[in-house]
């Protein structure tokens, strides 16, 4: 475990090494080296299985964080290679040539976050949404409620309650509210 982390640190200047569990670790490499690192892990270090690829929107920092999660079937180690890309010019080198299933992940990311992966096959195609015209819906600036209200004829008179407080009020109307509303939406 440490061995591979050392190697990747040395080779790709990996920072921010997190050992999550005994067999799960994350490293962050720079955008330019990310695909190189993944390729190297696949070809030389036995991380032949591509588990998944995902994205986190760090809106405040103006970054997208991409994660390539790899698995080594020999040593049973999972290694997540993270990288940050610019949020405004969200283009990332495509990894479709490494695993075919990357195609699909990249299509998903393109649809959900608007990250472009030039050269990735069928990247243009719809993933789950058909004919989506608004900004990518997983970007955090996208307001789903507002969109829904504007688009889908909301039923008038709908009220929304926090289940915890609502149920407490309903069941124990005489007691002070103890349940804290979790304010999720900003």
């Amino acid at each position, binding site marked *: 475990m440490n061995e591979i982390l050392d190697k990747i640190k040395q080779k790709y200047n990996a920072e921010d090494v997190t050992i999550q569990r005994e067999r799960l670790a994350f490293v962050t490499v720079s955008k330019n080296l990310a695909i190189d690192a993944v390729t190297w892990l696949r070809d030389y270090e036995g991380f032949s299985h591509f588990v998944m690829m995902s994205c986190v929107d760090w809106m405040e920092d103006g970054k997208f964080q991409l994660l390539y999660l790899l698995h080594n079937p020999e040593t049973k180690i999972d290694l997540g290679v993270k990288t940050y890309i610019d949020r405004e010019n969200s283009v990332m080198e495509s990894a479709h040539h490494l695993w075919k299933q990357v195609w699909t992940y990249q299509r998903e990311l393109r649809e959900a976050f608007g990250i472009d992966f030039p050269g990735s096959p069928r990247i243009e195609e719809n993933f789950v949404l058909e*004919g989506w*015209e608004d*900004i990518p819906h997983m970007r955090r600036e996208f307001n789903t409620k507002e969109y829904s209200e504007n688009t889908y004829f909301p*039923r008038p008179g709908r009220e929304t309650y926090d289940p915890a407080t609502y149920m407490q009020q309903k069941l124990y109307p005489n007691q002070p509210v103890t349940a804290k509303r979790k304010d999720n939406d900003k």
Partner: protein
Amino acid sequence: MSEKDMNSKVNEMLARSEANVKNSGKKFVRPEDEEREVVAPDGSIIKVNPIYDYFSGARPEEEKPRNGIVEKFLNWARAESIWVLGFGTGCGSIEIPPLVTPRFDMFRFGVQMRPTPRQSNAFIISGYLSVKTLKRVIRTYEQMPSPKYVLALGSCTINGGMYYDSYSTINRLDHYIPVDVYIAGCMPRPEALLAGFAKLKELIKAGKAEKANEYARNFDWYKANQKKIVKDWNMPDYNW
């Protein structure tokens, strides 16, 4: 970062993203929906518009009921012979299969399942409906012969339910196709469904289940609603 800053930043980003989307060039069209050219055997070029060429697409017309007793008899027959096409996308559809079990046994009410919309006169729509599935619902609904009845099964179908604020699920089915019977609940039990059938029978026998004609009458309104949310409209305006 203060809330104000945050908001201004968000607005700024929003504007940029929208601009990005608009500037990013042409919208994606599925290859099979693109106009194409084929070469005829005699060498001439034929232009194919896959969205309209293959379909009749004529507007539906109102189908006048027959006169008096005949229509009554027919309505009775329709009520006693409800052929159901099920459409399930979420948890709702799992409530339909119990109806054929000995416990609920819908057959004794003259209700039975049919595999094709052409041969069904009742359409059970269950579960939340995303834009994507709504397209299929519309197409299937339009393909059913008149008179046809729609049973909306479950809260999600009727008003969006817990997905009321989702970017992809519709809120109110009856803005897109007419609904005869609403079976509320999350999820309604099979008994509720049976009750729904009973209600439908009542309506049919009373001659009030003429929603197919309503659809034809308000066709433009329905279509406008449908087209508002279905952006990649790849079927004709009316699916015969």
